[in-house]
């Protein structure tokens, strides 16, 4: 089972480190990362294997959003199926 983690906000040092550390603690495995800087704007999208997480995905999503707030970023965690449904036929 996979989730997509999206991190957006103003660029600064240590964003990837912080998010990766958090996901590792939750036993989520990062499988793919795509990251760009547009001006001062940081955008990162990760594909994460969540089969090993101990909590419900909705709880992890809430905690990630909270962690994002602490580092001044907007962090979304969503089941990959929503993107497959909306963007693939």
């Amino acid at each position, binding site marked *: 089972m996979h989730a997509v983690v*999206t991190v957006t906000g103003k660029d600064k040092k240590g964003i990837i480190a912080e998010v990766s550390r958090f996901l590792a603690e939750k036993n989520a495995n990062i499988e793919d990362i795509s990251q760009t800087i547009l001006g001062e704007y940081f955008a990162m999208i990760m594909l994460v294997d969540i089969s090993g997480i101990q909590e419900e*995905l909705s709880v992890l999503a809430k905690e990630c959003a909270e962690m994002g707030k602490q580092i001044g970023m907007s962090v979304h965690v969503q089941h990959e199926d929503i993107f*497959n449904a*909306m963007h693939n036929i």
Partner: protein
Amino acid sequence: MFNKFDVLETINMVEKEHLDIRTITMGISLLSCIRATAKETADAVYDIVCKKAENIVKTAADLSGEYGIPIVNKRVSVTPVSLITAGFPEEAPLIGRALDRAAHTLGIDFLGGYSALVHKGTADYEEKFLRTIPETLATTERLCSSVNVGSSKSGINMDAVRQMGEIIKETARLTEKNDGLGCAKLVVFCNAVEDNPFMAGAFHGVGEADTVINVGVSGPGVVEHALKSIPDADLTEVAETIKRTAFKITRAGQLIAKEASQRLGARFGIVDLSLAPTPARGDSVAAILEEVGLESVGTHGTTAILAMLNDAVKKGGVMASSRVGGLSGAFIPVSEDIGMIEAAEAGKITLDKLEAMTCVCSVGLDMIAISGSTSASTISAMIADEAAIGMVNNKTTAVRVIPAPGKKVGEWVNFGGLLGRAPVMPVHESSAEKFISRGGLIPAPIHSFKN
């Protein structure tokens, strides 16, 4: 596989363009709850609704958290209550209040189905049931009521139309402290559908399975935003863009509907492809029409754009979902759409134009405040006009007007929340009393004889 632009587009739709699943509605059959007395029936109804929909609120919260899409309303629709109270119609309010209690226990937003289907004739028990609607709506909070008075196949039951004018007036009187709020929970249909997830008109048809999940998607803001990116496109491209956007929105609804029905142990009913506005800015159907090129909704050209919008939404949505149903189209409730509210306030949209718009979109004269002094026969005549449009055009039409007690044209009614606020709009003053007092049945049109 999706790419990063797809991901960011979805997130933008939710964060900036008000994409949401407007409602998960569980349809529950109450036919197994009929007992010898009203009290026993009310108890059975309360139990079955609480049991079947026990997890609907939690499941909606889980799905919303997992997929990152807000699910705004959790609702239940039930078998038309007139059918299960046929043996004791005067005591139907007992069942109505039991349903309202169940809605509170479950924590759901609305429960629909205090309804009667009288499109060909009103049975004695139905006539008595209809008379209980005002009191029931005045003594409940989350219960919604609907009455089907006509169909393309059977014609229009004008006796019921006359009675509904009086019932709407009485409902307004009994809820006058809240500007006639009861009328916002009462809708009169022609060609009512049995799987509609939207309120106030949802009920669980007798042709439906025992327990089903119907999902209503929304997203006028997403469509408006998509159109903003093509300001100079011709109308072929505009229609195509609406179609593509509707496809994406509906796919989200389809996914949620499938998951929700699985988790709740119910059948997947339908996805209703409706563009349902809210009073929030950026979530308006009127704004889409204006984005296409109107100075204000209500001016000449409104009907044409609405027809195109309604059709494109259906075409995109049908492709995206395995089971489409409900009302499926664009809603034009006045008090629930900021663009409509502003046009009504400025006198730029009239009831006559709204009536014309209902010929080409789903539903009808919806959430319109009129003067409290409007006569019952005038309200009945409005219902008759809408029912005629529905009957002849083989589509659902409805009337949900609020004759706000003590309020005159230009004054405001305010219902709060998703029901919104609206200025009192003028109606024609010439009487239709004689027409309405004739009663009888307006026969079905010739093109209904298809057998």
